[in-house]
């Protein structure tokens, strides 16, 4: 029982990390209709940002987050103007390979600049744990979990309760009609992409004290995040959070039972099964898989 609770807790905390990445990715898809293969690279940049500020100036990651996140979102805005906006309305192949190219470019630019060495940040709280009813919880994981849920909730409230949020929703529903209603569509895209990329960078900073930092770290996340986003329904923020927690628990549980490598295979099987049986995902709109591109 104790063990089951511990596995559940580990899974949920892991799911929280996934949620922060998945919410951004699903937002980019929902609004821009762009499948962003480079999304996890912005998390990698966030990790490296935290690392260098800690290594060179001794800044704590919880402080550097206020430097790294604006910097990466600025980079996101530039990327949006130079690459992403040029793919809007282009054939699927352009969208997919432009973001794949961006991913390869960012990974290897970092690799060329700072080598493939595996780095880490050892803060005082990197290994501190909170014991709750016999279940051990990593404090840093709890903080990033809380941040992820707060961000998702904040984003959802912003999208549903503010005028600009509703403008973003309007663009997501019908680009042409929104434009006719006087919404600056290009600016909505710029804003959405920058915010989504900033959330990925925030996750990078938050997990920097916990995980190894290396140029290809994003690669190990991106496929999992895509699975989560499709499971939740491409474009659905609550769906992404729900699916992230689910995959986190599946990964922790199956990892304990059959080992990490085969656990990965389980959620690929789940993923293909969902695509066959319910391609619109758990909370996605029906038919989105058909007209989604």
């Amino acid at each position: 029982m104790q063990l089951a609770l511990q596995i559940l807790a580990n899974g949920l905390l892991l799911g929280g990390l996934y949620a922060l990445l998945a919410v951004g990715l699903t937002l980019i898809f929902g609004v821009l209709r762009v499948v962003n293969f480079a999304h996890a690279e912005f998390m990698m940049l966030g990790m490296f940002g935290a690392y260098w500020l800690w290594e060179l100036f001794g800044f704590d990651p919880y402080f550097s987050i206020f430097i790294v996140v604006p910097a990466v979102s600025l980079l996101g805005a530039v990327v949006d103007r130079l690459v992403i906006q040029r793919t809007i309305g282009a054939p699927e192949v352009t969208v997919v390979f432009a973001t794949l190219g961006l991913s390869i470019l960012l990974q290897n630019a970092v690799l060329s600049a700072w080598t493939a060495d595996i780095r880490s940040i050892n803060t005082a709280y990197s290994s501190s744990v909170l014991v709750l009813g016999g279940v051990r919880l990593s404090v840093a994981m709890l903080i990033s979990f809380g941040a992820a849920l707060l961000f998702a909730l904040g984003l959802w409230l912003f999208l549903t309760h503010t005028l600009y949020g509703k403008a973003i929703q309007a663009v997501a529903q019908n680009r042409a009609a929104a434009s006719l209603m006087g919404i600056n569509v290009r600016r909505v895209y710029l804003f959405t992409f920058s915010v989504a990329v900033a959330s990925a960078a925030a996750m990078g900073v938050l997990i920097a004290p916990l995980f190894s930092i290396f140029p290809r770290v994003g690669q190990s996340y991106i496929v999992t995040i895509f699975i989560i986003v499709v499971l939740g329904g491409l474009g659905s923020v609550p769906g992404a959070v729900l699916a992230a927690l689910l995959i986190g628990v599946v990964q922790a549980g199956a990892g304990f039972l059959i080992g990490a490598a085969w656990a990965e295979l389980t959620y690929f099987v789940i993923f293909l099964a969902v695509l066959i049986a319910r391609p619109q995902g758990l909370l996605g709109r029906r038919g989105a898989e058909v007209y989604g591109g």
Partner: protein
Amino acid sequence: MHSDAGARPAAVTVAAAGAALLLLALPLIIRDIYWLDLGITVLVWASVATAWNISAGFAGGLSLGHSAFFGVGAYTASLLFLRLGLTPWLGMLAGSLLAGLLGALLGLITFRLRGPFFVLATLAFGIMVHIIAVNWRGLTRGAAGLLLPFDGGASNMLFAEFSTYWYVGLGLLGLTVGVSLAIERSRLGYYLVALREDEDAARSLGVRVVRSKVIAAALSAALTALAGSFYACFVQYIDPASTTQFELSVQIALIAIVGGMGTTFGPAIGALILIPLGEILRARLGGGPSLVLYGLLLMVIVLAAPNGAIAGLRSIGRRLGWRRRRPHA
């Protein structure tokens, strides 16, 4: 206009015959093992990209999982040879049959999916095969890979001479391009292009959607696996990193895109451009910076020239034809 249209095929025939002759005589001209090795590598990836193009270029199903079929071909032929002593000449047929079945199955699962959903489903399939190749150590020896002993001889597709590999590779490319050409000119080819351009309209005109897509997926997978088996016999060592990795799927697609997606000869031209270019860049710049350029190239090509090199060649050809005609006029 009429004389131009009549003259061009003759010029094309002469060019094609010249190219064929050059390809056949190449091992006699190039004696350097390094360049011949590079040439055979070009043949392998030209075949794979041409096979990918059958489902992705003609039918529009953008696959990012073709490394799976390449790996199935490489591993099936190698394992049948190592475990049962079956010659890779037959092993490659077994691998291609298995890959064809897997391709048909994947086609059946994914034919309904469009856009990003199809891409992600194929990506997931490719990674599943990679996970199995890495972790089913009892079968594949995992990351340690499989070594094919050289004592096999020609009856086991293991040759002492590089030039023999060149001719087998040329036969493989010839077969793949031949199948692709036959499809392009068949009823199936027209069905596939109709599906790619507007699936709903094609369906309403009576195109058999599932059947066409599944046949294309199976043929594409089977031909990819043939190239995988040949690759295993040529390199004589395979591991998941060189046969099933996701990066290979990206490379396969990129080669076809650079050459010209949706055309029969485009993907082979793409391999002729990209494989030597990649080799030179890696040698000159090292792994990291050459991949930065690779990423940049990928972005620029799909944004600026999504129709690939063959579109450029065609427009040059048109211009030359037009100029040559002027003195007669």
